[in-house]
């Protein structure tokens, strides 16, 4: 599975690159202030854990589990949310 000594990639990962069941910690939101605030109100706060819960059929928006609820985002939006991943967490697979 995951290699604990693996180095952080040069380019920071975004939420859009997450695979189903993978978890990550939100680092920053690179979005206009209004949109960022809206997402933060829904739980997308830096430091919060986000899990990709489900991909919508046909490549549509994806459903993320964040701060106790599930929120759907388009890939385009998710690609502006920069995250860090704890490789260890891959060992925990979402049911």
């Amino acid at each position, binding site marked *: 599975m995951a290699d604990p000594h693996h180095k952080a990639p040069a380019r920071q990962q975004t939420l859009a690159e997450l695979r189903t069941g993978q978890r990550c910690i939100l680092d920053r939101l690179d979005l206009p202030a*209004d*949109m960022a*605030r*809206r*997402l*933060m*109100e*829904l*739980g997308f*706060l*830096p*430091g919060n854990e986000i899990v990709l819960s*489900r*991909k*919508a*059929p*046909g*490549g*549509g*928006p994806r*459903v993320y*589990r964040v*701060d*106790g*609820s*599930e*929120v*759907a*985002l*388009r890939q*385009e*939006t998710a690609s502006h949310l920069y995250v860090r991943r704890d490789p260890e967490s891959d060992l925990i697979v979402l*049911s």
Partner: protein
Amino acid sequence: MSDCHGETPRAGLLPNPSIQPPRPPGERPIIVAIVGPPNSGKSTLFNRLTGLRQKVANFPGVTVEHRMGKAKLKGHQEVFLVDLPGVYSLHPRAEDEQVTHDVLTGTRPDFPKPDAVILILDVTNLGRNLVLAAPILHLGLPTLILLNMADDLAQRGGKVDVAALSSELNSPVALISAAKGTGIDRIQQFLLGTAARLNAPPARIELPILQDVPKCRQWAANLGKRASYRAPAPPIWTRRLDGIFLHPVAGPLIFAAILVAVFQSIFSWATPIMDFLTVKVQSSGAWMTQVLPNSPFTSLLVDGVWKGVGSVLVFLPQILLLFLFIGILEDSGYLARAALIADRTMAIFGLQGKSFIPLLSAYACAVPAIMATRVIENKRDRMATIMIAPLMTCSARLPIYILLIAAFIPNTKILGDLLSLPTATMLGLYVLGFLAAIFTARVLKSSILKTKGTSFVLEMPPYRWPTLQSLSLRLVDRAKVFLRRAGTVILLVSILLWILAHLPLEGGKMPLLEHSYAASLGKAIEPFIRPLGFNWKIGIGLISSLIAREVMVSTLGTIYGIQGDEHSAGLQAALHHDLSTAGAIALLIFFAFAMQCFSTLAVVKRETGGWRWPAFQFSYMLALAYAGSWLAFHVAKHFLG
């Protein structure tokens, strides 16, 4: 998907549970605002507290709707409840939040400042929900904090110390289940005590800086900790159901199956009821003619009023059925999944998944559909959805479709028993409306309503059983709106048309239709509609149907002096004198595209805050209708000879 285990949720400490004498008479009634995030059960609570003693109202000038109702309370005290739009914060960003903010701070000149606030929160996600408590408590109004969905919390193994939370917030807190009705007595106690608390000093607590979202969230998390909050396990049924409804293959198939089933049942279930009502309207009309003396007044009453209004009333069952289905889909939580599935397809036309819900409602009626566009935060997306909603085939188009198809389209089979030419024509008209809508959306979204990358952010609520109370209240609401329209606008048009068709008097007698004022109107527009294959009689119908599409059938009935219902063979035969088959096809196309609905124009004006958009919409749809029917008439004439 929850089940009550018979456990009564614990109620919090109410600091002032005393029931005080009401304020002296002559003052304005006490107003209590209900505030909460979306999906927190605000409306369920409101319905439970007010029952049928509520009405939907609009704040003038803005697009936001609120509901007012009188609370059911013991004793003589009157407390009015206002259900404000669901918000995540009071940060005035969207129009909804602005209104909630303005009402609560008393800065709306048209609405009195509430005397107290009921803040309802979803206790299954207390950390995030409590964030809203900061700006609400900041207002300094007496506030009751309700932790809703107590049954879910207990069942899924969560817990919270209500007394501790109450003392942390220095405000009364109660655990309730709005859906089950547990804990409601605590709210009534609070409402009864409102008058006594009017001059009480505001609760003193430390609040975070409201602009700082992370700080507010941290504050809420700490509160939860101090109230020994344990979050419940994630709702297992929601996960399981999403596994099916959002499955890559099964999801879209179920989505399509639900849509087909909804439309199929609306037509097959509602038809017998509609037929029954049609017969009743006719027979009662005939009975009135027999019983009442033969006079112009009887004619006005029977031909003008009763048949005009009656021909519209028969659509009530169909509209209610569609609203019942939409209500079930919405209350169960499926509609959010449907929006998710539809998002990708809607994106092709420049729209987003949230436009799907209003567009689905538009198949019943554009008026509630346009009001439902409020869920779309992006103003341009919302505008585009409002612009295209009236192109969807609403139920008011059905009477004229049914009449013309029965009269002009031969009942030949196309695909054996599967599809006949009339059915195919009807389906074709539905598809045509849909195509016109998405084409228009595409054009608008790449020109005047262009946006930089539309966003789609939607919280997926847990699945829940729709409650009978909420569904029936929806239907009562819709029925009221519909009946009011039939009793006012359509009644007036019917009377006016009857008068125009029977004046001026010729030698003390009612004139032939050809010499009436109505005919003059029809003849005035005849030069414009002649190229579409319509004569002045159809012209009268077109003018009257500008008010509402369904008026067309009753108008034709009045014009021909024949019972104006779509099954009437007499009316069908009479139409053949004035309309060729090519003209009938052109007329169908005209109705598919034209904006013949005053109610829709009025609601668009209200929602867009001026006459600019409705005027544009009216002209655009008229141009589309004129060009479309001109083309249809000439193509049909060429092929049909």
